[in-house]
């Protein structure tokens, strides 16, 4: 088979091999990358920085382990920011595994001496209210009464006995909502109900696939900041001064993108050469 015709139909295992190499090799390299901060991530960071100490932040973990590589670094960074600035964190999940991911993020933070020394107290500085089924109806119900929607926390303690939940009735008692979303229910539903209906102030972190869907909300001012994919995680980490997995994994992503683009160029070059020869003959 002629060379350019072979290039048009490369065995996909060859592509898999090169993509695999592009993803793995960066783990053994120590190359720094310049991360440019986008206006959307800057707006998200500024929204956190504007909150005075003691403000209540509702963090919603609407994702599961497949999306954790992109969203978990952002959750950890946001929690760091909250604990550093003495913001009170209320964690919930509209996805069943969301609260477990929240616990994993807390476990990562509390493994560091800085936060062990700081000793955030459960029920006073942060609380995990767990998962509630019902998708967007949960958000609507929270607009009337958050304690009625989440009557107990993750471990079964009634919310009346949790100091952090005293005085919290609905979204008017929440200073900022930070939504981590991988799909439905997620950012779109939070904007439709919490922001539009109950006037909550909200920022979001999405997977790279979902982020383009919510750009209209950013431009309409319904979302105060958006962090998309692993690049967003790296930007968020850079702004907080903490180098986490979002920054470390960007090198692998850069290499992988370059490999994919090279294969696209090879395929198109072979296509045009083959087509030119067919036309001439």
């Amino acid at each position, binding site marked *: 088979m002629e060379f350019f015709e072979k290039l048009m139909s490369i065995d996909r295992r060859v592509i898999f091999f090169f993509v695999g190499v592009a993803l793995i090799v960066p783990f053994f390299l120590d190359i720094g990358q310049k991360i440019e901060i986008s206006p959307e991530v800057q707006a998200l960071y500024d929204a956190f920085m504007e909150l005075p100490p003691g403000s209540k932040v509702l963090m919603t973990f609407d994702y599961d382990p*497949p999306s954790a590589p992109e969203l978990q670094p952002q959750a950890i960074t946001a929690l760091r920011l909250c604990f550093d600035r003495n913001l009170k964190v209320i964690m919930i999940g509209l996805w069943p595994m969301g609260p477990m991911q929240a616990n994993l993020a807390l476990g990562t933070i509390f493994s560091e001496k800085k936060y062990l020394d700081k000793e955030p107290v459960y029920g006073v500085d942060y609380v995990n209210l767990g998962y509630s089924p019902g998708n967007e109806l*949960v958000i609507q119900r929270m607009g009337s009464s958050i304690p*009625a929607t989440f009557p107990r926390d*993750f471990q079964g303690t009634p919310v009346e006995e949790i100091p952090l939940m005293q005085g919290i009735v609905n979204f008017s008692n929440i200073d900022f909502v930070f939504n981590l979303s991988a799909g439905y229910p997620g950012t779109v539903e939070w904007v439709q109900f919490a922001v539009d209906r109950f006037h909550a102030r909200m920022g979001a972190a999405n997977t790279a696939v979902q982020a383009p869907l919510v*750009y209209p909300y950013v431009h309409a001012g319904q979302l105060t900041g958006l962090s998309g*994919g692993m690049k967003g995680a790296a930007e968020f980490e850079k702004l907080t001064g903490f180098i986490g997995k979002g920054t470390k994994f960007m090198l692998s992503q850069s290499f992988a993108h370059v490999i994919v683009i090279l294969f696209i160029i090879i395929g*198109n070059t072979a296509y045009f050469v083959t087509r030119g020869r067919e036309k001439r003959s």
Partner: protein
Amino acid sequence: MRRQIPQLLTAIVGFVYIIQFFIPHKPFNLFERMFSDWFLIIAACAIWLGVLNLLKLSSEKVYKRGKDWPYSLVSICGFFLITIAGLFFSGGRHFQDPGTPFDYVYVNIFTPLSATMFALLAFFVASASYRAFRARSKEATLLLLAGFFVMLGRVPVGDLITSWLPEGYRLSNLTDWIMNVPQTAGQRAIMIGIALGIMSTSLRVILGIERTITGGE
């Protein structure tokens, strides 16, 4: 009556939710809270429905030795493993607390396996991109160029390649323009179209015109 009662219930609940959006005072807000609580209870019960259905289908496949029946056996065993671990082996703690067998299975088995399955997509997307992104027509060329610039601009390599250009004219700036202008415009158009479709279908369901929901024709 089998269709009339569900249609009547749909109409009542639908109108209550519409009215309470514009009149959030008594008695409509009380009805809205009641219906929302009922919905949350039904949603919780639906989880059980899904689980029992999964067990039923998997058991039938194993019993009849259907195609790929060993995978159904793995599903059943996995379900009972994690249920029993969570219910009976938590040592008095909450089953999701760190250090419990349930937490161990979640962190060390479920999370890596789920992430691995999703990560496989990266390889298939790369292969699909190589085959699909060919400049066969004007539209395909536009798609190819947009994908090309967004992929490069979304990683630091893009700015590295165009670092010789003045700030504001680099690849990441072009990517931001693509995402903020044409992409957002297209998303808005799609969202408005979907919203109009949802409004129209919802009104048809609430008014009983759309009968396929309740088993009609």
